[in-house]
């Protein structure tokens, strides 16, 4: 298969709630475990013999069913995903794991538990700061989850299963890291919307299938030296973002997204789990200590330092920080991104958006103006 054929496969995988790979897995007797947040280790599902499936809302058109139970100040991501669940389109899952990522996700858990047919439910209480003294709390939560899954699914999740799972997930992460490294090139062989499509596919399909496709794709991309035209390179930051079409809107204005500092982006694949030592401890450490997201208290300095490093490594011209409206946890980080950008001169555009909103006219105007501004400033700089 060539590059565009593999990308088409990944596009098919991400466009519907139930993709053909998961369907095939289920028809072979396999189970699927859904989860909501990048702080829930997907390796645990794999160790339980399941396919981990990150909950998202492809093809959702409205939130009418979810709105019966969720108030209008719940973000549209949660409302769309709950709506799909209430429509029964996530009934192929054997279980769902939620956590206290935010209050809105907690409300989602309650609806999943009481109003869907998904038989297994679990809730993780994750500390809101990555202090060493709290690692044991997080690990205990994982142990409780494992115990509950063992009991419900009549499986054993021992060190051996966890170790095998780590190897599989590390291979997927290695593929995504290699893919992302290609985006450092002056002419990346893949656009931001395409790269995000690949990353999302890794969240919702069996990783064995994903790795096979990703390796063929990487071989094709490695030798692709075609020049790519763009006016400015961007890093996109924020929390939830699983709509490749949103990045395409930015790229249609002349931008090129070279990195996604988001939950469905780099937060998923950066940093491997060491394959030596007690596997559960290593899993817990990887998820607990990696570059923090906005929900973690006092996380902004480390997050921003990471963004600044990425800006350099990926030769980015600007930062686009986005959040879905009503996302309280990301509101503070977006304000801080604006404030830091003002003080250090990093071109920064902040976008509030709705999940799956379409009607991107105002986003186009903002992004185009942002590109024009970056170009004007670089021209002025060259004149000086």
């Amino acid at each position, binding site marked *: 298969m060539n590059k565009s054929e593999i990308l088409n496969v990944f596009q098919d995988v991400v466009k519907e709630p139930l993709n053909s790979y998961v369907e095939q897995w289920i028809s072979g007797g396999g189970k699927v475990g859904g989860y909501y947040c990048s702080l829930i280790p997907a390796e645990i599902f794999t160790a339980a013999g399941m396919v981990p499936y990150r909950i998202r809302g492809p093809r959702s058109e409205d939130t009418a069913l979810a709105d019966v139970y969720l108030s209008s100040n719940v973000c549209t991501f949660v409302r769309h995903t709950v709506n799909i669940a209430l429509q029964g389109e996530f009934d192929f899952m054997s279980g769902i794991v939620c956590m206290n990522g935010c209050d809105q996700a907690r409300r989602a858990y309650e609806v999943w538990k009481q109003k869907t047919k998904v038989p297994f439910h679990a809730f993780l209480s994750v500390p809101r700061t990555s202090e060493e003294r709290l690692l044991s709390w997080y690990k205990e939560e994982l142990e409780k989850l494992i115990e509950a899954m063992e009991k419900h699914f009549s499986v054993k999740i021992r060190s051996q299963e966890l170790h095998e799972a780590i190897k599989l997930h590390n291979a997927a992460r290695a593929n995504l890291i290699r893919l992302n490294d290609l985006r450092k090139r002056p*002419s990346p062989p893949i656009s931001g919307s395409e790269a995000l499509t690949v990353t999302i596919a890794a969240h919702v399909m069996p990783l064995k299938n994903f790795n096979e496709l990703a390796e063929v794709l990487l071989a094709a991309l490695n030798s692709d030296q075609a*020049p790519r035209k763009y006016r400015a390179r961007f890093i996109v930051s924020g929390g939830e973002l699983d709509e490749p079409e949103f990045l395409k809107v930015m790229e249609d204005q002349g931008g090129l997204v070279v990195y996604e500092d988001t939950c469905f982006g780099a937060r998923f694949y950066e940093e491997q789990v060491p394959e030596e030592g007690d596997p559960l401890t290593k899993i817990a450490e990887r998820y607990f200590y990696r570059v923090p997201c906005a929900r973690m208290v006092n996380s902004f300095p480390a997050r921003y330092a990471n963004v600044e490093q990425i800006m350099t490594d990926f030769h980015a011209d600007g930062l686009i920080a986005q959040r879905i409206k009503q996302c309280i946890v990301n509101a503070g980080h977006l304000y801080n991104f604006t404030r830091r950008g003002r003080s250090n001169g990093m071109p920064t555009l902040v976008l*509030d958006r709705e999940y799956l*909103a379409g009607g991107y006219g*105002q986003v186009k105007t903002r992004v185009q*103006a942002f590109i*024009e501004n970056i170009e*004007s*400033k670089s021209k002025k700089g060259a004149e000086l």
Partner: protein
Amino acid sequence: MPNQEKVTAGVDIGSSTSKAVILVGGKIASYAIGPSSVSPTKTAHLVFQQALSSAGIHREQVTYTVGTGYGRAKVEFADENVSEISCHAKGAHHLLAEVRTIVDVGGQDTKAISINKSGLVMEFAMNDKCAAGTGRFLDFMARSMGLEIKDMVQMHFQDGYPAMISSMCSVFAESEVINLINEEVPLPSIIKGLHKSVANRISTLIRRVGVENEIVMTGGVAKNNGVVETLENILKCRFVTLPGNVDPQIIGALGAAVIGFEKDQSLQSRTENAGNNRGTQQAQF
């Protein structure tokens, strides 16, 4: 042909109205304003043709055209399209070099833009997908009261306190207006309340980018003295007036035409210096 005779054009396809400006030698020769339609391509041709006719210029004489506004991608005869944020900044800076803050209130969008002394955009803020704080909001309200916008402007300056009207949502505000009408609140009070509601929303955006003098208001709503006066009172400032009675509604199209003029000059100098050109640069780090 010397630069002074160069003809450039800016075409601004907005949500309610479309505008075209023709520059000859960098100076305004003519402009046209017309209603937008369901076909932005046709609207662009129409408003462009009106401006050309008004200046007595043939289409072939125009050397560079820039499209802007919501329908900017549909100005098919344009050499390029530029966002309305850059165009309003350019247009305002072209007319008033001392301006540092621009507030453009159009039919669908409100934008606050801060620029430096070179006219470079430093920051901008835009309203979200919401009609509150836009010209469309006032159109809705005028329709609810069976008035024209010009009547509302006139009544704004009659006696009366502004009625309390929500600034959160156009649909709710409309029902509030109907309620006030049924309570026989005088129309001037309702109108002042509506203008206050719009001005409050606009002031939030301006404060986001910072209120730095001089400030100028552009867009169709800048012609509504009731809103302008209310906004000035809220911000405790005075907007500068555009020189030479330039219509504030054409500033986006003017900026587009000025960008076209500058591009055209730069293209010409590049052609003249072709022998010294380094050629197209490959992206390198």
